[in-house]
């Protein structure tokens, strides 16, 4: 695929020995550690800070959900169904009289958890496979790369739907499906990074010293691959939340009564005219969280890899 080739191209540029030499310029070392530098650049990036604040807000909303609201998320109050926003019901009530704000707050837990676990799973498996493929090459690379090709041959949400169709609709299965569709994204990224790292002189030196493969991977390859992985993980966090919401919307994710934003939108669909607030609140929440992760991801990319800056 085109993208991969382009990646490898830039990876090779990054791996240019002359540039690596510059990294160890004594003056640079005197300055500050790369992580501190990244953090400093990130805090100077206004958009990344806004993104970070949005995410913190939703994390706090999820954690403090039971304290912020007197209602339970499954509590029905049929007398007060489809009530507009008021002091009593901040974001109104839905078609069976559940408080929208309460469900939104508890929904934040679900969405952030799905994002976290799906991305962690994809990251662990994708990175491992990518390292194995890139480091050992030959037939192992052939097999793993073809598996990635096949997984990427499906539009991602379609593959997720297929997996859920096999496993049955539930939160866990939606999570597994989202993790699987994101594995090749991490896998390819890491693979191309490892392939360029493999040819570096310090890796050859480590090999010449008799260092074992496992140690080389853990001490040299992995630490030098973290920057692109972190950027991708942040961006994937947003996509995973979008994908989870899509599955929830199609009724293939979390099952009721657990509140999930996508599913709340599916419920709201039939009451658009009567109660637009049931439609607006969950939609805006999904958008803000995804926007937050995108802003942080863009900021991280600019900070970690100045070459990719627009």
């Amino acid at each position, binding site marked *: 695929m085109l993208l991969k080739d382009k990646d490898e191209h830039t990876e090779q540029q990054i791996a240019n020995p002359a540039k690596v030499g510059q990294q160890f310029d004594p003056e640079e070392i005197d300055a500050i550690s790369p992580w501190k530098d990244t953090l400093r650049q990130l805090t100077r990036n206004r958009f990344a800070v806004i993104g970070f604040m949005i995410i913190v807000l939703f994390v706090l909303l999820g954690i403090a959900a039971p304290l912020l609201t007197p209602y339970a998320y499954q509590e029905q109050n049929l007398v007060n169904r489809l009530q507009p926003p008021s002091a009593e019901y901040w974001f109104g009530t839905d078609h069976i009289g559940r408080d929208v704000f309460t469900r939104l707050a508890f929904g934040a837990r679900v969405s952030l958890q799905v994002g976290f676990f799906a991305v962690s799973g994809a990251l662990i498996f994708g990175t491992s496979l990518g390292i194995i493929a890139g480091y050992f090459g030959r037939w192992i690379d052939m097999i793993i790369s073809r598996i990635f090709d096949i997984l990427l041959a499906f539009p991602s949400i379609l593959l997720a739907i297929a997996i859920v169709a096999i496993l049955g609709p539930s939160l866990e299965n939606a999570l597994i499906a989202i993790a699987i569709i994101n594995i090749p994204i991490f896998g390819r990224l890491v693979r191309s990074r490892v392939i360029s790292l493999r040819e570096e002189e310090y890796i050859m030196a480590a090999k010449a010293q008799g260092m074992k493969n496992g140690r080389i991977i853990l001490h040299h390859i992995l630490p030098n691959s973290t920057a692109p992985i972190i950027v991708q993980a942040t961006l994937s966090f947003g996509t995973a939340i979008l994908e989870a919401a899509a599955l929830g*919307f*199609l009724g293939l994710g979390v099952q009721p009564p657990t509140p999930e934003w996508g599913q709340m*939108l599916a419920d709201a669909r039939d009451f658009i005219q009567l109660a637009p607030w049931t439609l607006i609140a969950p939609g805006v929440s999904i958008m803000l969280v995804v926007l937050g992760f995108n802003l942080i991801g863009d900021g991280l990319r600019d900070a970690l890899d100045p070459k990719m800056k627009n």
Partner: protein
Amino acid sequence: MEDWGDVMFAYIMRRLLMLIPVLLGMTLITFSIVHLIPGNPAQVILGETASAQAIADLEENMGLTEPYFVQYGIYLTDLLQGDLGTSLRSKSAISSEIWPYIAATFELTVFAMLFAIFIGVNAGIISAWKQNTWFDYLAMLIALIGVSMPVFWLALMEQWVFAQELGWLPAYGRQESRDPIAAITHFYVLDSLIHLDFDRTVTILKHLVLPSIALGTIPMAIIARMTRSSMLEVMKSDYIRTVRAKGSGQFLIIYKHALKNAMIPVLTVIGLQAGVLLGGAILTETIFSWPGIGRYVYEAISYRDYPVIQSGILVIAFIFVMINLIVDILYKKIDPRIKY
């Protein structure tokens, strides 16, 4: 130097050969959809209350009693002969009923893509032209929100505002359901033109507006961002300085000289968006009751119509792979420096 035609031919052949393992892998996955269902697939399909006889019949019918590799062999042979199986719900051959759905999705994605490219490319160009002005900031803010928005939410908001509150555009379907078109190609815009029924063309185009915008917004945002950064890059190059020195106006510089080179990375992005579109089509079609292939698969899931799920997914993935192939070939044609 080798003949350009030979190079292209060799390249295309190599890409086609590389496609074989991917296609086989895809069929393996769609084959597994039925066979990885926990428990007895026939039981799952027919539900808890099915009689033992009905289950045995279905197993026989679907060939579930054979060993896996035999079943996979039969599945592949059938596929190669163009047999996509039989829908359990409609009892008719999937290969004969799938075309209208594909055409519906195709029509929708084409219009979505036209919207995405036209607005995205122009917004990107103007943003680059007027860099750091209010237009640039506004366009990029909209683009940023566009990539973060769930397709289905945008679709629902459109329905609420433009169909229900304002009543400007229809919220459901491809046409007035009381007055269906006599379909020829199943591309309704084309069909209505063939019939020379231009009032109908307008109606059909009106039905296309909301779903196309919903589906096209994410690609539009991505294309706009890509065009802007690519344009800024090209505008810094030496040949643009030369054109400027020649005294050409800004408009001519941008649209005649810069655009061609700036479009190379944009074209890649456009190709990659095909997957987003086909995936997004499932959600958009569900919301707008658009009788496309995404909705065909989605409805099959609720009816546990596994042959349709299998073949529908396979067909979408196949289209996706083909689009990627075509984009790669076009890409090489536009920029011969690319080596694979």
